[in-house]
């Protein structure tokens, strides 16, 4: 495979010595080269954006810098000195801090306990009041105000992220790596985060921000590096020297065909695929997770669902599919009321789901691809006391061809697959069924750009085939591109239902944060 090269000019104006510099960094997992001969550097007082699609090697590179992985070849220099980072502790001692995408906080602990645990030293006793004071002082100084006494599982995702960044800063980080920090935030929260990042930059700290959103890169980054398939295609270029199309092509390796812009208007009929009326639902910790939700999804319509992470999306998904008991209100699927919490009944009415977290909610250890897909069609595959496995295999081959997401070999154990390949199995299972209602939670998570595009086409195909689609996503651009209407959740309330062409992303962000549109 030939490696693309970019002949961007490197900005010569900012040449202060790098905090961290890597040369020829290579990391292999078995036969796979996750990063191959990567050069990269970060200087104090800059925000450096690392772009790349899922699986390009961004996270691997950052974990090499943070000492989670050790490179197979190449070297890491910190302040110009070659260092061997055997563990995160080594990296932390050198002033490198990382904020992981799955935040590394213990939900059952308070903010103060979490931060105390992360700070090195500090003696035998856990001095609660002293730590709490320290947190308030540091928060004030750095612009990350948090309540040290709060239990982490009571905090919103945005608040947790603030705690996480403060935690990293308090342990003395000079270089902060942020792994896709914006994917869970509303646009206004992203603005707040960027303001805080700018103030860190002004204090001379260095920030690496991993993202695949170009407008964010443009808003915050001083320099940009682009990874594709483990190779560094551009290292530390000036973002103003390239346009968006060039950046996308560098990330993806080819032009991405646009979605068909013209599509049939949603049918002006009264056939409802899903009707949610006055629904109240409790969350896992007993709190009220959905308050008085009224929502209608017509057959042949895509209803997007937007919201800051943890606003009730999961509970709405589960309520719509009969997975979570209602405290009050009613849910109708295809005009039939579901009178109790019964996923089998919802399936029987033609409701299909694409789960948010396949590993915990859909993947059965030890079962292969065929068995997973057979599970969704057991009643049609029965033979005597058992299951007709040869017919099941034929069915799966036919499905794979029809859906076209190219699953791995059908006798592979699903639990051993990568996230992207698991998601292909989930999508093939869902799109292979003729349904009246499709509830899709973050269907393109973990997929590369091309497969994401195919997934979006399949969602539109279901819509054309007359299914009602409830489409939950954290990506506002994707929501606005695909949805006929968007329901915005805020803190378990339905903040509003908007039509994408009529409002902009900030208006939706306003609703996500609880303001009026």
């Amino acid at each position: 495979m030939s490696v693309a090269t970019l002949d961007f000019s490197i900005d010569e104006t900012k040449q202060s010595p790098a905090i961290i510099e890597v040369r020829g960094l290579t990391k292999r997992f078995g036969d796979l080269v996750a990063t191959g001969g990567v050069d990269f550097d970060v200087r104090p007082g800059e925000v450096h954006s690392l772009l790349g699609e899922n699986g390009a090697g961004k996270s691997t590179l950052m974990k090499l810098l943070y000492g989670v992985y050790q490179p197979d070849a190449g070297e890491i220099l910190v302040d110009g000195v070659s260092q061997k980072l055997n563990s995160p502790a080594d990296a932390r001692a050198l002033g490198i801090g990382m904020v992981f995408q799955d935040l590394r906080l213990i939900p059952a602990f308070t903010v103060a306990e979490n931060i105390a645990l992360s700070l090195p030293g500090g003696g035998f006793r856990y001095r609660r009041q002293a730590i709490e004071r320290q947190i308030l002082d540091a928060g004030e100084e750095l612009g990350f105000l948090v309540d040290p006494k709060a239990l982490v599982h009571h905090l919103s995702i945005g608040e947790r992220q603030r705690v996480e960044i403060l935690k990293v800063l308090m342990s003395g980080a000079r270089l902060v790596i942020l792994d896709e920090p914006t994917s869970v935030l509303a646009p206004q929260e992203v603005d707040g985060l960027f303001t805080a990042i700018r103030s860190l930059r002004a204090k001379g700290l260095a920030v690496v921000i991993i993202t695949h959103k170009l407008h964010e890169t443009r808003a915050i980054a001083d320099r940009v590096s682009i990874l594709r398939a483990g190779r560094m295609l551009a290292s530390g270029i000036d973002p103003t020297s390239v346009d968006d199309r060039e950046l996308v092509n560098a990330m993806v390796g080819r032009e991405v065909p646009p979605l068909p812009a013209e599509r049939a208007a949603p049918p002006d009929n009264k056939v409802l695929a899903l009707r949610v009326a006055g629904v109240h639902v409790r969350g896992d910790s007993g709190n009220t997770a959905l308050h008085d939700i009224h929502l209608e999804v017509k057959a042949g319509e895509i209803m997007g669902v937007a919201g800051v992470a943890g606003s009730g999306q999961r509970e709405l998904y589960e309520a719509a599919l009969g997975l979570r008991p209602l405290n009050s209100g009613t849910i109708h699927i295809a005009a039939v009321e579901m009178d109790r919490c019964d996923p089998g009944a919802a399936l029987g009415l033609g409701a299909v789901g694409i789960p948010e977290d396949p590993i915990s909610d859909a993947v059965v250890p030890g079962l292969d691809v065929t068995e997973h897909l057979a599970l969704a069609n057991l009643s049609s595959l029965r033979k005597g006391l058992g299951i007709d496995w040869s017919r099941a295999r034929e069915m799966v081959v036919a499905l794979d061809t029809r859906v076209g997401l190219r699953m791995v070999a059908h006798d592979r154990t699903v639990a051993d697959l990568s996230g992207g390949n698991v998601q292909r199995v989930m999508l093939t299972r869902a799109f292979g069924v003729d349904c009246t209602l499709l509830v899709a939670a973050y269907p393109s998570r973990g997929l590369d750009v091309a497969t994401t595009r195919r997934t979006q086409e399949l969602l539109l195909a279901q819509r054309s085939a007359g299914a009602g689609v409830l489409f939950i996503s954290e990506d506002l651009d994707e929501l606005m591109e695909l949805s006929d209407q968007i329901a915005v959740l805020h803190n378990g309330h339905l903040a509003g239902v908007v039509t994408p062409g009529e409002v902009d992303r900030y208006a939706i962000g306003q609703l996500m944060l609880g303001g009026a549109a």
Partner: protein
Amino acid sequence: MIAAQTATEVGGQLLIVSVMVGAIRSGTSIFYAALGETISERAGVINVGTEGAMLAGALSAYAVTAETGNPWFGVVGAAVVGGALALLHAYLVIARGANQLANGLVIMFLGLGLTSLFGASYVSREINGFKPIAIPGLSSIPAVGDILFNHDPLTYLSFALGPAVWFLLFRTRWGLLLRGAGERATVLSSYGYSPEATRYIAVGMGGLLAGIGGAQLSTAVALTWFENMTQGRGFIAVALVIFASWHPLWAMGGAYLFGAALALGPELQVRNVGVNQFVLDALPYVMTLVVLIVLAKRSFQRAPEGLAEVFDAPPVS
């Protein structure tokens, strides 16, 4: 044997007082084991082998006391042996990936086998064990004095240990680390700590306390040794930790509740209440189940995350 002694010592007392005295006498060994299991489970390792560690502790204490004449040496021996059995559990579970429940059961069998092999020669030996020490002044308070201030030294030690373990878990940095290992080990690793090392220490401490619990049973309460003498007290301790919501002080209360159930039978018999002995023997177990039924759902919600995974995880073959 246990029954006979309790009866002669407190004969003539009100039933409620006798039962409360017996509750602490019989509950203390369970409390030690439950305290140890609390530490172990807070770090994310369930050790059903507590029964085996108690049994091994009971014999070690008895044997060492018989050989040296000093029950305190016996306690040290019990702690060492109990801790060693628990560390074996820790090694197999942490480093070798053994299923926690199954491996714990094997530890129990190992304890049974070892004590049967090495205990045979002590079955009819007598020892000079711990004697109750009445606290001057306090022990003469009516009822309360007998219930709280006329016990063996290991019981007094346990009064202090409950709060001490609470302090360790909730007011020290090491406690944060230990509870962190039971909640989300990945968080600890990302700070460069070793959750494995923390777990080894916690499980070892758990076994050490279970061993001392066994020592209390053989050298302070029963003053005899016989095969399988713990009779499921270690298993009760494991159940107790759940309904104590992994809290050391609740475990203390729970252990005395069991002690009371254990003590009730003999007390009723002394008073010639006509109840079948075996019906009363079942009482502690029935009571555990009832308490679990009442508390289970709420209790399990407070389980350390890492531990909940053990309970939910499918067995690996």
